[in-house]
């Protein structure tokens, strides 16, 4: 990948649980078609799924941007939502502000941000309470073996 950037953007609807996960599925399919390492694709799939679910669970709506950069993959998810008051606290495993009805569906276990962290090389979160959150994730594929 020498300098040829490819970018896509997908809309995510808040509270649309029926379609939740479709955006990260698409990202995954693209990476598979481009021939990325399977373990790398899996990591990206999990990280982007968590980011997508955060929008679905908490926000009004959001957008997921994917960019294939020369050395890495960048995913930016921005949403219009309540924002995260204490990012450090939200990074702790098990911490969740998801309402009970969402937890009953098996979501909101407080693993979202920790899972993103685990599966990315860089994770930057900028959030404004009452306005929304921007999550930026950088994931570097392993060096080709050839």
């Amino acid at each position, binding site marked *: *990948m*020498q300098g*040829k950037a*490819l970018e896509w953007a997908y809309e995510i609807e808040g509270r649309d649980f029926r379609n*939740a*996960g479709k955006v*990260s*599925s698409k990202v*995954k399919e*693209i990476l*598979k*078609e*481009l*021939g990325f390492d*399977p*373990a790398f*694709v*899996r990591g990206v*799939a*999990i990280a982007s*799924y*968590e980011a997508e679910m955060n929008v679905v669970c908490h926000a009004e709506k959001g957008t997921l941007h994917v960019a*294939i950069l020369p050395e890495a993959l960048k995913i930016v998810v921005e949403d219009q939502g309540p924002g995260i008051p204490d990012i450090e606290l939200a990074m702790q495993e098990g911490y969740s502000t998801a309402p009970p009805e969402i937890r009953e569906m*098996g979501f909101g276990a407080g693993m979202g941000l920790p*899972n993103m962290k685990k599966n990315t090389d860089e994770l930057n979160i900028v959030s404004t309470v009452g306005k929304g959150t921007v999550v930026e994730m950088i994931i570097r594929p392993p060096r*080709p073996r050839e």
Partner: protein
Amino acid sequence: MIRMKRSYGIITIDEDKCQGCVNCMMSCRTEAIRIFEGKARILAARCIYCGKCFRDCPENAITSRTHGLSDLKHFKYTVCIPSSAIYSQFPGESAPNRILCALKALGFDEVAEEAIGAEEASIVTQEYLKGYRGPYPLISSLCPAIIRLIQIRFPHFVDQINPIDLPAEIVAKDIRKAKAKELGIKEEELGIFYLVPCPAKMVAVTKTETKERSYIDRVISIAEIYGQLLAALRQVREEEDLQKASGTGIGWAVKGGEIRELERQQSLRGDKESIVVDGIKNAINVLDEIENGKLRNVEFIEARACPEGCVGGALTVADRYVSRGRIRKLMLSEEKGSAVDRAEVVRRFKKGYYFLEKGLKPRPFAGRLDADPPKAVEKMKVRDEIHSSLPGLDCGACGAPNCRAFADDVVQGRAEVTDCIFKWREGVKDLAREVMQLAEKRPHSLPKRGR
């Protein structure tokens, strides 16, 4: 007339029968079929040998090559291992033992049930689960079409396939080890035949990836010998006692049969879930959700390519729903106890007897656009541009199953944009406009019109 048949591995398409309709192409879940010059063609790298197209072809043009009973003469001693699906294929009082007697009457020296191998495989899986600490979920290794689907589309999960051999191979391995010696014949004089319900099992044996050579010598489909078996069934007078398998092993022929025994033996953990899924599309959905992390906490997946399980195999004859009912009856009857010695199975398991001899390999690149990443990116750009210019009807008239697959084919040089009937029509329209414009022109030597 020379019959025109084209082969793709063991699958053959009779091109005299094929009308080039799009039924098989549209129903193929891995998008492995294209229509080219009026005939269906298979992209072998994408095919998982499920046989769905056999059923969906209205002309019965697609089938698979199979060995036959004529091969019996190549061997001194022959053993038939019938898939448990065979017990579901005949109506009325055709109890398993009677079916086995009829099968033997076709010329085999011995019959050995696949279901015995399934009983062993279940015990082995129970033992394996005791020591298994992930990654989860563990995926059943019974359905070779699902295994190939995973190798191609979910390569990351290859390591999570239960590393235990096919029940039929387990049975064949037992026979091969002991029989030739016992009879005092050479190994190659012993012929082990496997009676299969689907092309995927055929390929899993004839092109095995998990050992140097399969323990099975020949594969015959249930459909291939159904007529002869039906006739033999009517002629069975005295029954020899041949059935050794219990409902536990026979149950593997239907979806849920494998997990049912794991549940009965309390081998699955209470704090995790298990999934039974049939049909390729459904299996893709489940695996996709697991890959995304949407489905979590799943311990074991029993996935079968065919609806209702092996009784729904493409090379079976009876209706799959009736068949499921027949197997369920056998499964639930406790008449027959298991003939398998659990302690012996556990002992052999600990020695590694049941494991695949060679691990399964991922085949992640069946779907990629190019081996060279920059080229793949370039192709994807062009592909997406072409895709967005297409009508999005997924009509199949171009010979590809949908507009996205067609755009792929164009980028890969397998098709031209004008193969799309709408693009072609646009082209004709543009051309016609140009012709009209040209027709309006007059040489400057002539006076202008209207003067």
